[in-house]
């Protein structure tokens, strides 16, 4: 019963919070660019307007995959908040990404096709880091359960600082920020239009937007996980990460997918490996 209440609370509160963050993102980005920017509630206005529009789609499957994307992201967020198995959360997130990608593939549009191919490569870039994060948590705490982290006296950040840096790289990809806003982004691109979401409009685009809000909360939750005792330190950590992402977005140009793969695989994965190696060696009493 308690779990059900938590789940319901998460499902209702997360998009409000996510939309709010998205609004802050737009204001801060505008300020960094010397503009005034829209009101903080602008993302909500946008989504409500989209929801009221006439439903237009290219085909049925496109809509079904968008729904799959939404529900699976919600599922992984709920699993996370219930303290579930981190590896499973990562796998369900991957399934959600698969849904999103197939939504892009399901229309014969050059823009959404290339967007999907790039989203696939993005997945290839971030998936190993997320799984390695889960393995790091296991090596440190002896369990894959997020809930178990609440019982730890020393925060994860102390033992896994390098993994957090790797997670920051992943955050850029997942939040679709420069330099990794390859598959789609908050702005239209010349060669890609709106990439993977080009053929979504009206209420279906709103579904995708709301899913991104949920996803943002989940990602910030992963950062919070690094400092859970007391939890406000973790929240500050997540806020700081969010702000850093915005700065990176505004000082970087967009790069190519092969650069992204090389960068995430060389620095992200290596950072994780060094960190895991240190934990492992420490566990074996070598260091």
């Amino acid at each position, binding site marked *: 019963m308690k779990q059900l209440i938590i789940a319901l609370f998460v499902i209702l509160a997360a998009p409000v919070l996510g939309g709010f963050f998205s609004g802050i993102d737009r204001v801060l980005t505008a300020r960094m660019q010397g503009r005034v920017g829209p009101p903080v509630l602008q993302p909500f206005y946008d989504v409500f307007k989209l929801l009221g529009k*006439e*439903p*237009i*789609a*290219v*085909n*049925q*499957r*496109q*809509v*079904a995959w968008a*729904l*799959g994307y939404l*529900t*699976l992201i919600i*599922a992984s967020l709920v*699993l996370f908040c219930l303290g*579930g*198995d981190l*590896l*499973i959360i990562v*796998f*369900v997130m*991957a*399934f959600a990404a*698969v849904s999103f*990608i*197939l939504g892009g*593939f*399901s*229309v*014969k*549009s050059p*823009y*959404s*096709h290339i967007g*999907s*191919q790039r989203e*696939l*490569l993005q*997945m*290839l870039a971030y*998936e*190993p880091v997320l*799984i*390695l994060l889960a*393995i790091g948590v*296991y090596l440190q705490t*002896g*369990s*894959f*359960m997020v809930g178990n982290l609440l019982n730890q006296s020393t925060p994860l950040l102390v033992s896994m600082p390098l993994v957090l840096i790797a997670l920051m790289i992943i955050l850029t990809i997942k939040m679709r920020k420069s330099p990794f806003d390859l598959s789609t982004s908050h702005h239209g691109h010349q060669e890609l*239009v709106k990439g993977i979401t*080009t*053929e979504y409009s009206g209420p279906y685009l709103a579904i995708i937007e709301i899913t991104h809000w949920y996803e943002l909360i989940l990602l910030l939750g992963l950062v919070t996980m690094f400092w859970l005792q007391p939890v406000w330190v973790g929240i500050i950590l997540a806020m700081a990460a969010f702000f850093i992402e915005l700065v990176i977005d505004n000082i970087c140009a967009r790069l190519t997918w092969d650069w992204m793969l090389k960068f995430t695989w060389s620095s992200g*994965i290596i950072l994780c*490996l060094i960190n*895991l*190696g240190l934990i*492992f060696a420490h566990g074996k009493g070598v260091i």
Partner: protein
Amino acid sequence: MITGKYLLTISIWLPVLAALLCLLLRNYNARNIVAFLTGIILAACSIAMLYIGPFDYQPEGLLGISWDTIITAADFGLLAFVLYIGLKQRHLLITVLAITQAILLVYFDFTLGGGHVEIKPAFVVDNLSIIMALIINIVGSLICIYGVKYIADHEEHHPLAKSRQPRFMFWLIIFLGAMNGIIFSNNLYWMFFFWEVTTFCSFQLIGHDLTDEAIKNACRALWMNSLGGAAFATALVLLLKYGSDNYLSIRFLLSQAGKPQITDILLLGIGLMVFAGMTKSAQLPFQSWLLGAMVAPTPVSALLHSSTMVKAGVYLILRLAPVYAGTYLSDMVAAAGGFTFLVTSILAISQSNAKRVLAYSTIANLGLIIACAGINTPLAISAAIVLIIFHAVSKGLLFLCTGFVEHNIGSRDIEDMEGLADRMPITTTIYTIGIISMFLPPFGMLIGKWAAIEAAAQLPLVAFMMVIASAVTALFWIKWLGRMFQGVPGAVRKDEPMAVHYKISLGGLAVGAVLLGLFILPLVTNIISPAVQKYYANSGLASASGAIIAGGSGLFVVWPLFALIIVVMVVAGLIYKPDKMRQMPVYMCGENSGGFNSTNYITTSDTSYALSLSNYYFAGLINEVKWNWVVNSLAIMMIIVLLGVTIL
């Protein structure tokens, strides 16, 4: 136990009898009846075995001659035939390996007296054998039923003067009998015989079409598996010479696990058997025989990849796992398996031929299973068994689907499957079940992979290879799904007339894949856990209220996820109202031309241009030919180390 005795006898002899009937009654209807009846009886036998549980069986001799003598004679007969093939094809390796095996066997049988050693009981059926029996006799039988119809269609496409269908069914069905022999044998010498029979069957089946390529690839399969056979024979010699008669009994070997009696030289014997398993499971550097095997008609690929042949390899490695637990050999097995999993997953990305993608994926998953055997904790062994079961069902289904689609659209290239969801919706649904059950939650393969990664967490290097590989695996499956689900404007739905054979085999495997995923909890509790607990302190996996628990450190919620998927499908159905929703053509950055049912557009030069899309294959980055020698030399080094660590 009396019933067990009959069940076991039927599962080995019935395929032999049925195969002979197929050969003698040269008639399509007769083959149908034989295949259906054999399938039903074999499946019933395996289910009955599950019901009565583990038992031993010691067969009496035949007409006063002991079985050991008969098997020795059959062994030499088989080797003589292989030698004949080697000479006829002027294939040096086959010839040399056949002679080597013959010398080893002569030494084993006559100098060491191995031919007269009586191992009691000759057959031991335990929970692991029963799981394998269920896979072989249910999945294998479905493939044989599919095969009857497929090979008839196949000959319609490629007419022959004299039908080769009877001989095809002969080898296909007898394969099941040989596999049953392998999994039930307690006597390693007997197992060796059945092992050689499967090698020979696969040679005959791969070369079925008698084209130059088919014969070449069949010969490659034969020499690679003969190398494994020679390793197996060497292992027999070592076990008998440096151990005692008892060491030819798997039960005795397992009882010696972890004791100092397993000396270095005996461990080398075990290592050689693991090596034999790796050749049979097409691990690097022996992947080329399984890749080449796809020249054969599709039911052969389905059989080799899912329920037989390659599964014999992982079965042996898994069977012996308790014996080498805690040794360096075990760590090396884990590393070699992980390496294969990683490399072949990456190579699969660069392939557009559906059968080749499936083949690489099989090799990769077998690598994962072998890595689990090498990790050798209860959780890892449970993961390996889960993977074996689900891989057999899903991979069988995928191959059969590929064959069916190939006969319908005339291609097995993934690029040609564009818009298959519109053209052949029913087949695509079945295909999708197969693909999704290979890599997405909450299906069994992913549960296995999850348990494998959780088990590997203590071995960072293996875990790392698994992590990268599992991310890469998703890439080629999604690309494939993406092609099939691409909406092609104006696509015309084809008729999908399915012969009853196809309905039974495709439908059976698809329903099986879903049901097994849905009921994995009782599967784990009642079938997988007992098989592991027999040789390990606990089973690693347990189930509790809709979820699976891994070794106390992880939790996989199965049923809530299934419920979620069903909810999505229902909601999608409710939301989608074609009459209320306006459908529009896609944005082309230029005027669409050709109307609603086309994706032509007007370019800047004022001409109409047809849009064509295809997947990324990264030809510049991943070059199979260039990679092969590097990968193979690395793999050979690993195998040398693997065998080396046993005697160091």
